[in-house]
């Protein structure tokens, strides 16, 4: 059995898949270079795979040509779930896709297509939610900073959305669970690994004011006669609330005075 060790990125994984195909590997295992423990004492044969953009792009082109663009997107989303064993599952999926071509999309009720699609869907749901759940604070002159803790690694999936949207300020979205951040300098974004903040970022003078206004607005907008916290929790699970400005209000709702 051969173990392929790659850098943890999707690009790196595609390179590992390409390497395995070249060697005619059958039941490969994949490990990220961060979790060394996974390569146990009994590790047979470990291949270090370098992440080479051209190799990854070439595999992508091959797969899209034979299977389809959509099937490739499904693999990409599923990969970002970072679930244990996802690489081996995707290996089967990609291999099958290269065998059956466009039929892959019609095998929804069969394995591994079914599981890969289900996982991809979960990730895509979470990524969509986070397009709404990112909360920027304005720090030092105009720089925007947001903190997230998603379950899946959605940051690479949503960064381009924010690059388009917030085109007039530099920003950073920090996934504190994975110690990584997307940084955007007005034009394009890049992923930076191993980020730790040494100090709480100081916010701009306006920040408290707008956060406060938003919190009051949020509390005020609920209609008391339709009170339904279960439904609210279904849409905004508690695990997401830590970094949502509107759920972390320090001020009490404003009491309306007679005027």
């Amino acid at each position, binding site marked *: 059995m051969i173990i392929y060790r790659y850098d943890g990125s999707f690009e790196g994984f595609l390179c590992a898949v390409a390497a395995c195909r070249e060697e005619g590997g059958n039941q490969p295992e994949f490990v990220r270079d961060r979790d060394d423990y996974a390569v146990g004492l009994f590790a047979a044969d470990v291949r270090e795979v370098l992440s080479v953009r051209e190799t990854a792009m070439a595999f992508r082109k091959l797969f899209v040509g034979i299977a389809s663009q959509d099937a490739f997107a499904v693999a990409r989303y599923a990969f970002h779930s970072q679930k244990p064993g996802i690489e081996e599952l995707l290996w089967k999926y990609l291999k099958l896709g290269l065998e059956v071509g466009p*039929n892959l999309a019609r095998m929804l009720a069969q394995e591994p297509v079914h599981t890969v699609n*289900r996982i991809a869907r979960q990730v895509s749901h979470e990524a969509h939610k986070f397009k*709404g759940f*990112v909360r920027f604070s304005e720090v030092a002159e105009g720089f925007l900073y947001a903190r997230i803790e998603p379950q899946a690694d959605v940051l690479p999936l949503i960064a381009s959305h924010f690059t388009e949207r917030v085109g*007039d300020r530099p920003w950073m979205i920090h996934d504190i669970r994975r110690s990584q951040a997307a940084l955007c300098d007005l034009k394009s974004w890049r992923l930076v690994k191993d980020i730790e903040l040494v100090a709480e970022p100081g916010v701009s003078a306006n920040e408290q004011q707008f956060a406060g206004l938003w919190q009051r607005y949020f509390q005020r907008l609920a209609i008391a006669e*339709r009170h339904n916290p279960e439904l609210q929790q279904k849409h905004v699970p508690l695990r997401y609330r830590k970094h949502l400005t509107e759920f972390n209000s320090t001020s009490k709702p404003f009491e309306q005075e007679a005027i």
Partner: protein
Amino acid sequence: MFSLPLEQRLEILADSAKYDVSCSSSGSNRAGKAGMLGSTASSGICHTWTADGRCISLLKILLTNACIYDCAYCLNRRSNDIPRAAFTPDEVVELTVNFYRRNYIEGLFLSTGVIRSADYTMEQVVAVVRRLREVEGFNGYIHLKLVPGADPLLIAQAGRYADRVSINIELPSRQSLALLAPDKPREAVITPMRQVSGLIVESKAARKSTQLIVGATPESDREIITLTEGLYRRLELKRVYYSAFVPVSSDNRLPMLPTPPLLREHRLYQADWLLRFYGFSAHELLDENRPNLDMRFDPKSDWALRHLELFPVEVNRAEYEVLLRVPGIGVRSAQRIVQARRGTRLGEIELKKLGVVLKRARYFLTAGGRYLGGITLDGPRLVERLLAPARRPARLDQLELFAAMPDVSAMTGEL
């Protein structure tokens, strides 16, 4: 009206706007521009949910809650003793841009009470969006409420700046409107929508929607759904919203309801979805003998129970349009079935794998010739089965309709 601090005015004007149900930010797909703020996503994006479980997508506020009209159902009617406030256009612009940049919102939904005259009021609203678009270069979503009776030129302007415009019809029939909103003739509501209809055809201008209040007046569901169908087909509206009447006043022209008719509102939304995404017509759902929706079932189950001769259908062969009419099968399930059956024969296990919920659907399906219901298909027994398991309370069911989904939602009707 401007004397209070900004945060108090924000609360007053949010209070006054919150009964308007529309908050959708879907249907526009505009890429961001380099160096500018804003883009729109065709699926729409919800940013948070309030304690009543409704999504917040847009900053929904009034420019002012002062109003020269005295509509009985409205919180902001002239004779109601509530605090009044107003924003300056600059304040609205600043709030919008700052909330948007922090990713609190998808954009602005600006409505207003009517002050001085319809034209004057509409001018104020247009001033806000002009500033947002032209001075701030704001490229996010904007939904504007049109003022009934405003000059067609102003309405045309509003339609060009906004992604969506709406006028609330509020009351489904002319009689009710005359009784509860004596100052607003229905023509003043319909005409601007017609006009914007024309605009849409000639340019890529705004989409339109409206809102109907449910339970304040005696109209039947049939009248409401038939009106809705007309609005979709003839005025090309994008959405009709229904708002369960919350008694915001003790006006004696209005019924006293202990709680808002939320279940009825929910059933109306289900019927509305059937019109827009499932190929149903209003007359199939309701007729003279059955003027109201059955509160026990969703309208599709109700329709299927009256048309048992059409069922069961074979899941491996039935046309897409037929699958859509099976209770419990939604747009997404139907699409998956059609796709997956090209690859393999579908049985019960495969259906479950596809994520098709069989709870209701099984009674209306065969898979590979085998009936999945396990009972004889007859009306009374089926009614019993469909009602039997202690269903989740309607309140929880209610908003599954609004579950936010990724990008295909604009096609499948989810959101």
